[in-house]
């Protein structure tokens, strides 16, 4: 009870003391919050990207077969489906239809795909990503979407539905079509596909399967799930690298800030500590009071900074990181990252912001508070 009341009294004092220098302390919290904001934004963004990568990989097939013609990807013949399926260990071979469509109206590239049977929209209907809906202003269900490949040829599709997906990055510019519509719209012959996708019964057999298949199909290129994973890794590593650089800058700012704090107390603060000691405050009391102060400042900054970062990354779509994201999708600023916060990372950030700050405040205070207080006698 006594100890509790004592802390209560010390905290009360701290609040009174903090409110004296409102401008200075608010400025302090503001600067501190900004640092936390940058760090937390980078952190949220990086983990959102990682989540995107995981989501992308989850849907990726074990093996993709592409037809090469003069070293470039071409349409692949449906005949090869049976050839591939006849290789031991391979199952579920399907031909995929997908491609890119440049939409002159919105000036953006869409990824047009024919989904698997279960999700196939009926003829004349499409399912579109949020980005497209926004870019074309298709607010209601059943809105018509006009697409044209060449002058004078206008195709009408009805928007059956807009995507609800965890992975906005991947679905923002996605347009799903019926297979027949796709072939008609892009003039793809009946026996051709964009590429083939297959699953391999045993993941360890992938290399053997690729080996056998490449002998049977000399003009094909094989992309395994591992290759895709590696590509994503590279892509995200690079993006994360940028984040790390940014985080480093923020840390540096914080270090400078903490060093300044640690370098000493103002004469006024030192005198105040002397007075408190002289009238019977223990070194422990003074330090506890300063810890309360540091706690209020750094916790306040942490809450402010992380909340702002959450809003920045998940609501506003991380506009500060736009340069990092450019090239991902032309529709870019219109997507939202799926909110997801890694609790352990948040705890690390909390410790990272409060502990060094506490240490930086306590050391000089401890030094001042362990000296004899007789200087205040005169």
């Amino acid at each position, binding site marked *: *009870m*006594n*100890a*509790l*009341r*004592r802390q*209560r*009294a*010390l905290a*009360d*004092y701290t609040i*009174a*003391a903090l409110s*004296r*220098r409102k401008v200075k302390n608010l400025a302090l919290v503001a600067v501190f919050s900004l640092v936390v904001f940058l760090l937390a934004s980078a952190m949220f963004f990086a983990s959102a990207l990682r989540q995107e990568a995981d989501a992308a990989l989850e849907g990726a097939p074990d093996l993709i077969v592409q037809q090469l013609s003069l070293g470039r990807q071409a349409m692949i013949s449906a005949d090869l489906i049976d050839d591939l399926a006849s290789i031991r260990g391979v199952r579920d071979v399907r031909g995929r239809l997908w491609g890119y469509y440049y939409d002159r109206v919105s000036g953006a590239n869409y990824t047009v795909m024919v989904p698997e049977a279960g999700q196939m929209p009926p003829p004349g209907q499409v399912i579109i990503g949020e980005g497209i809906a926004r870019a074309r202003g298709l607010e209601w269900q059943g809105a018509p979407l006009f697409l044209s490949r060449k002058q004078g040829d206008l195709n009408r599709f009805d928007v059956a539905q807009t995507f609800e997906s965890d992975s906005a990055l991947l679905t923002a510019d996605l347009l799903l079509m019926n297979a027949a519509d796709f072939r008609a719209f892009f003039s793809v012959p009946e026996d051709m596909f964009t590429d083939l996708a297959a699953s391999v019964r045993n993941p360890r057999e992938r290399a053997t399967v690729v080996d056998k298949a490449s002998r049977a199909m000399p003009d094909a290129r094989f992309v395994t799930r591992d290759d895709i994973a590696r590509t994503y890794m590279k892509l995200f590593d690079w993006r994360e690298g940028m984040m790390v650089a940014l985080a480093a800058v923020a840390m540096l700012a914080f270090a400078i800030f903490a060093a300044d704090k640690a370098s000493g107390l103002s004469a006024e603060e030192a*005198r*105040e500590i002397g*007075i*408190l*000691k*002289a*009238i*019977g*405050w*223990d*070194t422990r*009391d003074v330090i506890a009071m300063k810890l309360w102060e540091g706690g209020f400042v750094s916790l306040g900054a942490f809450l402010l900074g992380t909340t702002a970062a959450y809003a920045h990354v998940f609501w506003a779509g991380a506009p500060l990181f736009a340069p990092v994201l450019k090239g991902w999708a032309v529709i870019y600023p219109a997507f939202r990252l799926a909110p997801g916060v890694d609790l352990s990372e948040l705890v690390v950030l909390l410790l990272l912001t409060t502990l060094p700050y506490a240490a930086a405040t306590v050391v000089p205070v401890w030094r001042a508070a*362990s000296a*004899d*207080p*007789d200087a*205040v*006698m*005169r």
Partner: protein
Amino acid sequence: MITLSDVSKIYNEGRPNAVTALHAVTLTIARGGVTVFMGPSGSGKTTLLSLVGCMARPSTGRITLDGAPVSGLPERFLTDLRRRHFGFVFQRFNLIRGLTVLDNVMLPAAPLGEDPRAVQARALARLEALGLGPKALMPVEVLSGGETQRAAIARALVNDAPVLIADEPTANLDTALTHRFLDIVAALRDQGKTVLLTSHDPRIIAAAPVSAVVEMRDGQVVEVRS
């Protein structure tokens, strides 16, 4: 009983700017009396009070409080002694700017973990006794010199410490307020408390509650009158 035997205090010892503020002082201060320290400026009055009040340690010599030696104790024991035994009125008041008068007066009680309402009631009573009741919620920097001094006195009294140490407590008070202060001192003495004062003020020295006057010069005690 507080005793000093052969106590010296040298500031900046061993350096070219060393100052001997007290020189081999031997003195006994009775408990339950009012002792006034007098002497010219720089004679060592404040230094002596800071040693007795456990704010600093003597360079040589020994100080005891009720028979227990205090001069060699580490800082945290000295803090504890300060908290339990002394209330201080500093020559320059040392109120904390930006806080209200009441908050300042309550400060010495903060580390004790008492019921805040009890502390506040006590603080208000002290302020009332010194005529500062109406100013309790004002920030200390708007007080006049005499009001500041009284706020400092109220703060020294808030913990009911057995020893009041007051360095020039009436320098800024007019005759009426000085008498008010002396009434408080008399009341403290009647409660069996010990009061140590420094003063140049003849009104204080002539006042009824004073039981001993210690005359200092050049860091030494030259005369003790009881």
